[in-house]
């Protein structure tokens, strides 16, 4: 028997383990296994291993909380709206407070400088994050990546 023949029947054995054999293939494999009892025993052991892993899989799947997929566009839009409202409110409050502080001559210079620098740093950081997000738009980090 050639190496090619062995590989062919080994592929049939794999299909048998997985339940993918059609009738003609099953008959062909049965004839070959009858002439190769050691391979028949091998197939039986491989099938047993598959049964054990099937049980493992079923058990792991049994209590998985996988919800049917649904596009939750409404909830996402609502979240964005609420975050925008919160952010806008905070920006107004902080902006007004900082402007008041900077324009008030009674506030010590160190406090005014501190508030100014902190505001400039925050705005700079926000602009940098925004710029990074804008630059990454259109690129999908999960696209055909080999790792």
């Amino acid at each position, binding site marked *: 028997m050639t190496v090619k023949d062995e590989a062919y029947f080994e592929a049939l054995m794999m299909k048998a383990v997985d339940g993918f054999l059609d009738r003609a293939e099953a008959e062909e494999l049965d004839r070959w296994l009858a002439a190769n009892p050691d391979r028949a025993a091998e197939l039986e*052991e491989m099938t047993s291993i598959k049964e054990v892993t099937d049980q493992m899989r079923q058990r792991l799947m049994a209590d998985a909380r996988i919800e049917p997929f649904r*596009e939750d566009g409404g909830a996402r839009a609502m979240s964005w709206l609420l975050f925008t409202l919160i952010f806008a409110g905070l920006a107004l409050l902080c902006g007004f407070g900082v402007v008041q502080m900077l324009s008030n001559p009674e506030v010590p210079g160190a406090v005014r400088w501190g508030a100014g620098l902190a505001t400039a740093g925050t705005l700079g950081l926000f602009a940098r994050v925004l710029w990074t997000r804008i630059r990454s738009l259109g690129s999908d980090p999960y696209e055909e990546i080999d790792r």
Partner: protein
Amino acid sequence: MAEGLDRDVLTAATRRGFVAALRILKNRDEAEEACQEAAARAWAARDRYDPSRPFYAWYHRILKNLCLDRLASRNNKPADPEAAEQLPSEATQESSMLAAEDERRVHAAIEALPEDLRAVIELRHFEDASYAEMADILEIPIGTVMSRLYRARKTLKEALS
């Protein structure tokens, strides 16, 4: 909507991917989250899905990368050893001790397989991937899938006998 891709297909892929995510992340809650997030990403990017290729292979790639990102976000720390035992030990709760022992031995034998052989076992046995899906995911011909699967099962059989 991309041809052939609907919510039912995505839900089925999400369920199939759960065990794969669990085996990578070793944490049930994280695996569930990763599956759902991968589904959302696949849905958002559905226009880029090529319907001539198996959908599960595409979803699997997104899910695997997502799981790897989650692992990386743990600062490359190894998985919690207690959580790592979650896969085989869960069997002790509901099945007989004999079955649980079988599962532990099989699990250990699979973990000991070389990477290329373990990949085909995990795809076929735990994700119910077809040979065509496995070929697409692993980027190898179907003939190579079959020969690797045979070698993997033979190695497992020898390890367990």
